[in-house]
Every structure is written in C-alpha cells, then in structure tokens.
C-alpha cells in the first residue's frame, strides 16, 4: 500500500483540493454537542477530534426514505429518474464506519443486488481518519478498530502530521493532484505511528467478548435478561436508526391525489417496532417487546455470524449513546455471560 505523509499545516489546503473531486462532506457540529456528516466548505467547519456522529454513513447510500419507483395505473411501476451523476467526498470517516459500510455491502450485494445502494456507493469517495475511543467505543472487541480496505485515503494522526494510506486509484489521484503538500515517510513517522497505535489500543475502556458469543446466545435464549431489557426498551427505534449496520426497511405505495399515480417508497424500519413481524391476518410472530429485543441482539451477534461469518456489530457505541432508556449493549452481553450478577 502506498503511504505518504501530510504535514498538518497542509491539511486545510489539501481539503481545498479534495473539493475538486466532489461535494465535500465531513463531521460538523449540530446543536451544542451533536455531530453530523454534512456538507462543509473548509477545514474550519470540520470537527477533526470527534467520536461519533448521530447517524452513520449509511444515510448517504441507504436513505431514510427513498423513492424506488414511480407508478401509474396504466403502466405499472417504472424506475424513477436517475439521480444526477454528482460525486461526493466524505472526509473524516472512522474505521468502524468503514466496516459498517463493508457489512452493508455484503447485505445489499449477493445474489440480488440493491441497485439504489450501489449506484450511490460508486459516487462517493471515502477519506478515513483515525480516532481516540471514548468510554462507549468497543470496536477493538468487534475487530473494527482498524481498516485496510474500504477507503480511498486513510489519515492517521502521528503528532504534527498525518500518515496517509492510499487505498484506491482515486485516492492516489487525490494525493497526486496535491503532490507538493505531501512528503515521503521517514523513520520517525513510522515510529510515531506505531507508538500511537499502542496508545490507542490501550485507551479502550469498554469491551465485549465476541468469540464464543453465538454459543452463549443459544444457551441463554430463555434468559430473563431479555425480559428485563424488554421492560426498559421504549421501542422508539433510535438504536436501529443510528446503527451503522441496521438495514431493515419497509415498502409502501404513496398515492397522489388523483388516486392513480404515485411513488413506491421505502423507509427505514426497526425490528423493535410492534408491527415488524406482523403478517396479514393479524398474527404477530414477535408480539412481545422482549422477543423483539432478543431478536435484535440475536441477529447482530448470532444470526449474522451464521450468515456472513462475522457479527454485524461494529462497536461504535451509538446504540448506548442515543438510547433514552440507557440500554447498554456491553452490559446486556455481560449479563448474558453472567459476568454481572442480576
């Protein structure tokens, strides 16, 4: 992999260069404490030392609501007009986010390819940025604290510079377009990178043991922990909305006032909603909130492993950070493992 060094004093200028590769998006403030990925015009609007945004990057590719088709009574369903071929550069993407996208690539790919997702995926460049974990991050446990693919460029802070890994041909073009801003890697850069890597590794506070978790999940299928979490859970859907790997959606036809034309749309859904497993005729396969909570954990930590060989959790900590009821995945899993007495 090509690796170069970007001195921090050149970052602002480099960001200026990036704008010629597409509309620049980066983590920026919303409200007093929150952060979101949004369009930015220069470095001053970008929060470099952030931990997490409210929504993950999925919002760019798998939109909260999306038009799937136009329809009319005479012709049926037709593809909507394609979006303009606009390019985007998303700057400041953390490793767990990139892993989240790689998981969505698996889900939306395969035998049937979700054309909406991948059409947008091909228009977006990803510039990664490393981060310092806070007390909710457990991406080290999920093996998502580091990425070696899935980005065009990846910047790691090594003190007064960034060590920049070039992941794609497009990333290489970005570096070459601003060639004078970069320099070669020196011995002290390598040392600094390795030192920081150890420091970062040691700064994780939250941890879950995933290796044997599928087996524990099976064993604890009837655990009272699910009842307990079910009593707390508000079914508000926040954890699903903010999760980088929650991909459930539902589909509906929205009519115009003429009663004949309209659009088929899809909207983010959550397995915690009461109607999620409801079938026509009224039978609900998960009528109890506790069974829905269990299903969410089961799917992420057990089912996904069977399907794709890895859990679908990337350890970003959003589900805990934004849960109004304070449900903490690390605590739930510890309880299942009986590491916390309940």
């Amino acid at each position: 992999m090509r690796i170069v060094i970007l001195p921090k004093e050149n970052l602002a200028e480099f960001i200026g260069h990036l704008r010629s590769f597409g509309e620049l998006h980066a983590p920026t403030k919303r409200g007093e404490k929150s952060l979101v990925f949004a369009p930015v015009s220069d470095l001053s609007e970008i929060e470099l030392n952030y931990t997490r945004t409210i929504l993950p990057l999925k919002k760019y590719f798998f939109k909260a609501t999306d038009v799937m088709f136009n329809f009319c009574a005479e012709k049926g369903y037709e593809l909507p007009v394609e979006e303009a071929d606009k390019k985007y550069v998303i700057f400041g993407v953390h490793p767990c986010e990139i892993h989240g996208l790689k998981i969505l690539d698996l889900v939306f790919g395969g035998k049937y390819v979700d054309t909406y997702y991948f059409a947008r995926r091909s228009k977006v460049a990803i510039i990664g940025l490393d981060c310092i974990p806070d007390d909710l991050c457990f991406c080290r446990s999920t093996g998502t604290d580091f990425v070696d693919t899935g980005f065009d460029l990846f910047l790691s802070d090594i003190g007064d510079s960034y060590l920049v890994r070039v992941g794609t041909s497009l990333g290489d073009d970005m570096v070459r377009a601003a060639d004078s801003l970069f320099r070669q890697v020196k011995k002290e850069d390598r040392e600094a990178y390795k030192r920081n890597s150890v420091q970062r590794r040691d700064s994780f506070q939250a941890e879950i043991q995933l290796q044997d978790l599928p087996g524990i999940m099976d064993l604890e299928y009837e655990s009272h922990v699910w009842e307990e979490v079910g009593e707390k859970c508000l079914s508000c859907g926040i954890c699903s909305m903010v999760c980088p790997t929650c991909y459930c959606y539902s589909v509906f036809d929205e009519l115009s006032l003429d009663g004949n034309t309209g659009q088929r749309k899809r909207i983010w859904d959550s397995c915690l909603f009461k109607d999620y497993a409801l079938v026509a005729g009224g039978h609900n396969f998960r009528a109890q909130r506790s069974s829905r909570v269990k299903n969410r954990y089961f799917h992420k930590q057990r089912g996904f492993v069977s399907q794709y060989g890895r859990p679908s959790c990337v350890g970003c900590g959003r589900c805990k950070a934004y849960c109004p009821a304070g449900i903490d995945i690390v605590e739930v899993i510890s309880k299942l493992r009986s590491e916390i007495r309940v």
Partner: protein
Amino acid sequence: MGKPKVGVYGLTGCAGDQLVILNCEEELLDIAGALDIKSFPMAMSGGDENCPLDIVFVDGTVVQPKDEEMLKNLRERAKLLIAIGTCAVWGGVAAMSNETPREELKNKVYGPAGQVFDTVVPQPLSSFVKVDLAISGCPIEKEQLLQAVASLLHGDLPRLPNYSVCTECKMSEYPCLLVEKGQLCLGPITVAGCKARCPSYGRPCIGCRGPVEEANVSSEVRLLREKGFTWVDIQNRLRTFAAPADCFEDKILKEGANA
C-alpha cells in the same frame, strides 16, 4: 366509482383540524375535484345535512350532550367515519382533567356562567361509535390528511406510522433532547407523523399526537424521574393531550414513578 360523498364536521373543539383541510391551499382544488363535499359547515353554508355519506371527517371531542347526538347521527349517515385530530382520537385537552368532578370543574372555569350549559366527561369518539380511521395530531398533519384522502380515493384505508416520534427525529438527525439536554421529551411514547417538528426547533415533544401503540409509559416515567423531573411535572405533561388513553392510567403512571 363516482366521487365519494363527503362531510366534514366538528364537535366541541378549536376546529383546528378542519382548518388544516382549508389550509391545503395548493391542493384544495384537487380535493374539491376528487370529492363530492356534501357538507362542511365551517367552510360553506347550505350543505346537505341529511344525505348518506361515503366518508365523514370529524374533529373535536364529545364534551356536550349534543356532541354525542351529532356524532351518532354522523355515524349512521356515513360508511366511513374518520376521526381527525387528537381531540377526536384521544379526547385532547378537553379531557385532561377528567378525574375532577364535572360540576366542580365547570364552576372553576366558568363560574356562574357555567350553569347555562350541560357538559359530559370528554371522551374520544371511539368511546361512542366505531371509528374506521384515526388521524391524530394537534392539529393533524396536512401530508397525512392528503395521503389519507388519496388512499381512500383508491379504495384503501391509509396506513399511518405505528412508531414513535424518536424514529422520525433520528431519521432527520436532530440532537436527542432527552439524552443530550435532559429535557422532558415525550418522543419515545408519542406516535410519529409530524417528522419530529418540535425537536427540529430544539423543543421537546409534548405528546400532542397521542401515544404510540404499546407505548412503554413506565419506562418513560422512570427515565424522566432519573433525570430529576417531579412526579407532578411528568404527569401533567403525559396527560395533556391523551389522558383517556389506557396507557396513561394512574396505575401505570404510578408503577413507573415508583420503579
């Protein structure tokens, strides 16, 4: 099928939901073209007050004996009765003090003037008649109303969101007022449809759309207590718009408060 025959009526209330229909300025001609509006006393005179109707939209709450009479008459006239607005769906603000005896309340609000009219304990329309569709909101959302009309024209009963305001709030990526600011926000237990309008202005959800199905009120009360809100504040907020809802029964609220 010809144009559906439609009536729009209001019981006791502010008529704000009927006003939403009139405020559909851009769509009003389309609506008027698609529906055969037989009667809409708030908007037009000379309506037909006796003909059978395909659809009747009713806002307001049963507060006076004549409301009940009118409602039952509308039910008999119409194939589909649609409750519009939180008053019609949940009782609304008229029902926020239902535990206080009626006479006492009347006296407190109107003094001696209250002697000239009769009131009953305000209840949602569904306590009196079968309601085919409930579109809540204070007032209702124009988009939901238009969607409902479009679906009805197509022959379907519209499907409304069955999840909470939080879901829409997060879809729009608004900062969480409960988690970040510790405000008394009812987003988790209030039914969506408003696209989290209040949180979009940094104001907490006050529950004006009424509770979402299976609202976990105990958990909401518990978390608000943990944030330091008083029992009285919580109770007042919860019972402002939908006090008659089962999930706001005293027993459930106390359970949450004591947990």
